[in-house]
């Protein structure tokens, strides 16, 4: 076989590493030298991570209260009972009291949790118009078809913000009161309700339509609020940086949850005396009970929690890491035993060749 470059035939293939399938290559083999250390190292690393995660998760303090108002569970049941139907009575109030024997270390976050609420239902999830929410004037007047039946009001006015998600905006509100000593009056704990949404959502994804004569209300003229809303979108908050489409409660709500049980951030507690956390004492959360959940078997919870480097309390990941890490170690030993057991036999085989 001549493949000298001198006497090349016209049809002679090229002699390159690629065409001759001789590309330099690394041919890794799953040998014991690789597999066993891999498993032992991975196992140890995972156990380490797992322990870290587990302890930081355990270190997180959480207080939660189910205020759905099922009969016999506190004073919210009154409100719940009143709003048996679809429309709850406006402004029904109830409260939740608790006592902290010691400091609840900060920063403390106030969440509300809804369960059995399918924000991830596809029909619900698509019922929004991101063009409208990004402040496009044309989309404001002509909401996308996905918003139906919350696209136009019966009188033909376009609904802004359109769609089922906006229509079902969570509208309970909370305030936190603190009583240092049993005899002291309740002091309102300042709740930081700004910057509870993602920066990108607040600054990019949600934009108000261009102001008309400096007025947001005029910009929204000719649109109707969603049927379930009691006030138009531009009156969600008196703060001009927190109203309209960029109202943070609204933005948080519009970021739909992955699972039917979800928490959403309501407020941060980091101001004044409470920047280090909630000092001990008695607390009362005043709840304006508006949002009906009992019809679909849902629950409403209010949660106070602090966080660690890894976020909120969730023991799952720590435990999972510990389990996987231990399994790795066990597997490593199994493999070691098997390897020792079969190695000799393997060598015998090769001698036969």
């Amino acid at each position, binding site marked *: 076989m001549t493949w000298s470059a001198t006497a090349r035939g016209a049809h002679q293939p090229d002699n390159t590493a690629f065409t001759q399938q001789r590309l330099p290559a690394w041919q890794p083999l799953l040998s014991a030298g690789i597999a066993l250390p891999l498993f032992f190292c991975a196992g140890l690393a995972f156990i380490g991570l797992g322990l870290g995660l587990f302890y930081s998760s355990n270190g997180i303090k959480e207080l939660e209260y189910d205020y759905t108002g099922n009969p016999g569970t506190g004073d919210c049941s009154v409100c719940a009972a009143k709003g048996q139907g679809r429309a709850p009575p406006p402004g029904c109030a109830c409260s939740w009291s608790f006592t902290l024997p010691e400091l609840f270390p900060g920063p403390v976050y106030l969440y509300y949790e809804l369960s059995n609420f399918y924000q991830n239902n596809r029909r619900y999830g698509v019922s929004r118009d991101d063009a409208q929410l990004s402040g496009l004037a044309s989309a404001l007047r002509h909401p996308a078809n996905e918003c139906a039946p919350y696209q136009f009001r019966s009188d033909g006015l376009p609904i802004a913000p359109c769609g089922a998600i906006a229509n079902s905006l969570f509208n309970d509100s909370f305030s936190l009161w603190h009583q240092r000593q049993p005899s002291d009056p309740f002091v309102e704990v300042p709740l930081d309700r700004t910057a509870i949404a993602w920066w990108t959502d607040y600054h990019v994804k949600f934009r108000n339509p261009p102001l008309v004569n400096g007025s947001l209300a005029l910009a929204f003229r000719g649109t109707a609020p969603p049927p379930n809303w009691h006030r138009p979108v531009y009156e969600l908050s008196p703060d001009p940086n927190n109203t309209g489409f960029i109202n943070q409660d609204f933005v948080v709500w519009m970021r739909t949850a992955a699972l039917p049980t979800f928490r959403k951030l309501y407020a941060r507690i980091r101001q004044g005396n409470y920047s280090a956390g909630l000092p001990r004492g008695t607390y009362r959360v005043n709840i304006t009970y508006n949002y009906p959940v009992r019809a679909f078997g849902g629950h409403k919870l209010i949660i106070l929690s602090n966080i660690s480097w890894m976020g909120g309390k*969730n023991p799952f990941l720590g435990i999972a890491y510990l389990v996987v890490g231990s399994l790795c170690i066990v597997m490593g030993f199994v493999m070691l035993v098997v390897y020792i057991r079969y190695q000799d036999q393997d060598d015998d085989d090769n001698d036969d060749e």
Partner: protein
Amino acid sequence: MSTERDSETTFDEESQPNDEVVPYSDDETEDELEDQGSTVEPEQNRVNREAEKKRETFRKDCTWQVKANDRKFHEQPHFMNTKFFCIKESKYASNAIKTYKYNGFTFLPMNLFEQFKRAANFYFLILLILQAIPQISTLAWYTTLVPLLLVLGITAIKDLVDDVARHKMDKEINNRTCEVIKDGRFKIIKWKDIQVGDVIRLKKNDFIPADILLLSSSEPNSLCYVETAELDGETNLKFKMALEITDQYLQIEDNLATFDGFIECEEPNNRLDKFTGTLFWKNQSFPLDADKILLRGCVIRNTDVCHGLVIFAGADTKIMKNSGKTRFKRTKIDYLMNYMVYTIFIVLILVSAGLAIGHAYWEAQVGNYSWYLYDGENATPSYRGFLNFWGYIIVLNTMVPISLYVSVEVIRLGQSHFINWDLQMYYAEKDTPAKARTTTLNEQLGQIHYIFSDKTGTLTQNIMTFKKCCINGTIYGDHRDASQHSHSKIELVDFSWNTFADGKLAFYDHYLIEQIQSGKEPEVRQFFFLLSICHTVMVDRIDGQINYQAASPDEGALVNAARNFGFAFLARTQNTITVSELGSERTYNVLAILDFNSDRKRMSIIVRTPEGSIRLYCKGADTVIYERLHRMNPTKQETQDALDIFASETLRTLCLCYKEIEEKEFTEWNNKFMAASVASSNRDEALDKVYEEIEKDLILLGATAIEDKLQDGVPETISKLAKADIKIWVLTGDKKETAENIGFACELLTEDTTICYGEDINSLLHTRMENQRNRGGVSAKFAPPVYEPFFPPGENRALIITGSWLNEILLEKKTKRSKILKLKFPRTEEERRMRSQSRRRLEEKKEQRQKNFVDLACECSAVICCRVTPKQKAMVVDLVKRYKKAITLAIGDGANDVNMIKTAHIGVGISGQEGMQAVMSSDYSFAQFRYLQRLLLVHGRWSYIRMCKFLRYFFYKNFAFTLVHFWYSFFNGYSAQTAYEDWFITLYNVLYSSLPVLLMGLLDQDVSDKLSLRFPGLYVVGQRDLLFNYKRFFVSLLHGVLTSMVLFFIPLGAYLQTVGQDGEAPSDYQSFAVTVASALVITVNFQIGLDTSYWTFVNAFSIFGSIALYFGIMFDFHSAGIHVLFPSAFQFTGTASNALRQPYIWLTIILTVAVCLLPVVAIRFLSMTIWPSESDKIQKHRKRLKAEEQWKRRQSVFRRGVSSRRSAYAFSHQRGYADLISSGRSIRKKRSPLDAIIADGTAEYRRTVES
């Protein structure tokens, strides 16, 4: 009942088949055979028959009419056939050929139509339409459209490139030129403008542009030599002869221009050696047959100019009619893959239906009470479930991998290119690289069970060389120099002293030359003189160089050897032969040529020396010669021993002898001979008898030994393939002796092989059939088949069977049966029923026999079928294909192999030879048989492993990807919510996971090519379908399902109640989608990394590149800029940056990937340690093996003792040219008076015509 028995027994109790003859010709079709039968038809059946005749729409008639030099004639309206509604087309095809499929306008619509005919593409088209329905559209329109466009585009580009190549080739052929009479003069026109009825002129070495009737040529009697290599692969020349009348009157241009003959002949058909027609000219009619027809594709040789009339042009020509149907072959994996896609499709429907039911239930339980879900349509839960069924079909459509087919095609294309590029399959001598002519069968090369090989030109080079001889009891030919001392250095004999030597003969025995030159032993010179004079070779001088044209390559080799040894045959006329004897030219009068035929197995020539004595020279097979030797032959025993030695070296032998004849004796004999040669009946037999009288009391001169040269590396290749558990069957048209000889030469047969012949097989099969019948006939069908071997195990057996026996055994006797059935034409309904019943029984019996035969043959380690027709070759291949369900490969070089090449799963053509027919119909072609081992053991094995790995991974990857939606359904009310962003779904199959697996499919090698060849045992994984079968498929699916579970449930656990590091945005849908998608992309890309055993830098680059590409594109699509531009198309703004800055999410991703991959690593490690596969072991010891570079070549353990000798004359295919020589047709009229002897009746005929 009795009638049925009769007919059956008639078949069985036939006389023994004749091993010598090739069974009925392939071209005798059913209806021809029936025609013969109809002559003995009884009168009373005529009525019935007439009725049936009417039903037969097509009768063979001479309805094809051609008028010379009259183009208008063929344009008459009644020659028009209606094609579409009103478009009419002439029934005479133009000579332009068209093999391309599309032109500029039709490409797009036709190509799209072709592509949508494929089930997968059509499926995605349907999906696209479903997605356009708003009620059920669950995915954005682009998720299906983008991949589909990509798939269609790639296929379309491939088709376009193919078609452009076809356009080019057509154009090249159509624009060849040729001389045609136009307006009374020969003018040069292009091939495509030639029409039926044109008179054309062809020169030496021209290709024939159409099927033409030979009118005249520059040779005497208007002979014309053609080379038919293109048609049948035979390189020896064939001669065609024009009619006497056209020869006489149509020699010059003016006459040709006014030629107005009218021809009626059969319609175009594909029978290459049949033609019937009539020429009407000058108020006379002349019959035409195939001897007067030159076929398109042949080449004119040895003839300066010839003229012809175009009868069939273009698509009507026989070569085109033959090349018509190309069978579309698909691989086993293709079929498997299709079934798997159907399986997945069914799974898809079931899963969707289940989820739809779930949705209906959920709606009834939860959805209906969830006020926030109100959508204004008061649809019932079941209707919503129905809509969601379609929704889920769309969401889960990626379970059926859209890019599967196109990726498979890309991989196969790449693998085909690797075959084309392989330097080790490139034959430098003929500058022929290997070529994968079909790009769809590569992985099947790794699954071959049976190889069917042609002999001539495939195993052998079809070159005969003079190797050794035995003269007067002394053997010459082994290496020996003049002084009879062996030297370590082997020197070739120098022939330069001889002006006629062609310098190509390699001979090592210097002593023989010395003998010739010294002339001490007169027998030595006599021996070579005999070789130079006793033959029917024709000589042809080109530029002073002597060129021999022999009827058989053996004879050519002998005459050529004689020439090299100083006895050069120079010229022959009708009755003389001129020979140069060591430089001096002498002319001998030829008194008679006693030609070869297969019964005589010898040929003789009687010459008168210039001195006046008469001698007979004879050469022939040893068996027939020894019977006719004079009792007093001193060297008889020595020669016999020499013959045995030659035979054991697998050389083909011939015995040479001579005798002096008295003048008186000759005249006496000559009278008898003349009488016999003009005998009107049984002339051949009479002649044979006369020959017999003179060929006796011969004096033995010696024996020749010719080597039928095997191609390089054939025995090594065969033994290697045998080690890979591939069975090799040789199918050849040659005689039994040749075939057996070659079997030994290429070590398919060895001394300890027990050879079974047709008779043995037949009796074995008979007893088997009896046993089976006794066991209960039809009811046995339902009993479990008992496997009982025909032979006791442990012995090495070979089967040699001839075509006639094959027919006998397989009850393939058409002629007989059709005759018998015809004679007993059914009269009543009862009889008809009986008839059909008996036919069915016969069918059943035939099937049973075929199955038994195949079982039996497969027990033998080697099978050689000789004297088989092309059709039988195909039949044998088909039998194995059918009853063994094994993958077959046929390899051949000639047109007689085309049938088998097309029938086998894979056809391989030997290219670089003259004939192209086999190559044209093959799937792979290369120049040497030995490349087969590389094609199968290296390319085939790699392709198979790559394809299997690819498919397994592909199904896994798509299941892992798609089923996350399924698990997510349980948490979103079965609402067909996707678990990923739409853009991710769009690009996953196209960008994020396609390149690494494609590269693995192209480049992966578990062991190197050298090791693959060294350990042929590695090949069996493909034969046994070990790497990809239903079990493996389901394991892959299960792996995918488990991966998807991990991919969903670990993030689910992590998301159950989490909040971010900054307390924000705890567990939103978009972050979840990004988490799962990131884990998925990393997992599947690492998984392919685990699967890749050959990491080149491109692999590494593609794997990490895919992951990087994923993150890059995701961050782009989630960026603020793109949302501002397209707010509704890109809704995931900021998700990537917000989610992926959380360590918590990264920890989730890491855990998910680890849980997906670590078990795989563990299982692989354990299975490799506990049950290592062959390739694992070899990989493990790669380094050590590399060190022992050299491997022992298989020792040729081959010594044959006394065995049957093999006579070269038994190998000759056909009669010599003796008739032609003695009739003087081929020899120019420049010589002696016509008083010479007349050897044949034809010469007489010629004289009468001339007078």
